[in-house]
């Protein structure tokens, strides 16, 4: 066996042995077409017979029956090396992910069974993030010239029902969820479904009032 084939053979067989690659990884590149083109007739016959005997052809069976030595002997090495490249990339990526996890303290969580005492360093970091309830909620003053176009959707329409901003005060709950108080008084607005808003033709030559920014408009 020439050095190139020997090197590829060693790389593949050790990779399989160490479970760095699986038979299905090999079969991603060593496709049935490759096998059909490059394996000698005797090996193809052996593979078919073994599959018949096993009643199922699997990547494991292919590798077992054909063997790494025969693959290295008959399949172009660039195809086999493509398998190695793919598996090496996955391993290096896995290593990078593991390193990232370690830097975030995730490994200590895993070592503690997911929720163990070692997880405190990780959860402590999360405590620096303010809870949603502590975040300021900005309330807009009531619209002055209803109806207007909502800033949430250019086709939504706001219809005023009350005149005083204190009719239906809105406030965040303890859980931080913003809710409109539902008492006897109806809320001072309702959002009409977009599908219910008819398309209005805008008069030509008139400026479109889509600019919802505060301040004087040009």
């Amino acid at each position: 066996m020439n050095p190139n084939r020997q090197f590829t053979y060693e790389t593949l067989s050790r990779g399989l042995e160490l479970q760095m690659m699986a038979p299905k990884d090999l079969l991603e590149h060593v496709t049935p077409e490759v096998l059909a083109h490059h394996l000698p007739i005797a090996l193809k016959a052996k593979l078919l017979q073994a599959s018949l005997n096993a009643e199922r052809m699997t990547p494991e069976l292919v590798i077992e029956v054909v063997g790494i030595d025969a693959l290295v002997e008959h399949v172009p090495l660039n195809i086999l090396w493509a398998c190695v490249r793919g598996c090496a990339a996955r391993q290096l990526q896995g290593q990078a992910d593991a390193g990232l996890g370690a830097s975030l303290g995730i490994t200590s969580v895993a070592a503690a069974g997911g929720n163990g005492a070692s997880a405190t360093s990780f959860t402590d970091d999360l405590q620096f993030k303010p809870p949603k309830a502590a975040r300021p909620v900005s309330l807009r003053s009531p619209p002055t010239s209803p109806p207007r176009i909502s800033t949430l959707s250019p086709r939504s329409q706001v219809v005023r029902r009350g005149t005083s901003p204190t009719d239906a005060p809105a406030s965040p709950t303890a859980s931080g969820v913003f809710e409109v108080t539902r008492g006897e008084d109806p809320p001072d607005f309702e959002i009409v479904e977009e599908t219910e808003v008819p398309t209005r033709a805008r008069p030509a030559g008139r400026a479109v009032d889509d600019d919802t920014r505060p301040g004087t408009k040009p």
Partner: protein
Amino acid sequence: MPDSARQKWFAHMLGVGLDQKILSPSQLVVHVTPEVLAHHLPPDVMTKVITSALAAGQRGEQTTPDRLFESLNPDVMVDHVPLEVLWRSIDAGAEKAGIADKSEGVKP
């Protein structure tokens, strides 16, 4: 000694590659540069490298990549040198030997 399957696999590729002349120390040093070694080798390993180089110098021998990697076997390299760097060497060797297609290589 390599303690993970990943490291063992890379060490094996390096070892066989060097044995089969798919890789050479002069190719390795293209990726595993002195700077990389200086960054990643621990003091005890670096001591061996420097001692070996000094001893060779006293014998009037040149410091060559071969000499450099004499004291750095594959097991030691996978223990300390980033595997991405070693993979680039291995893949480049495979390309040069005609095993692999030309490629941008693996960029983890």
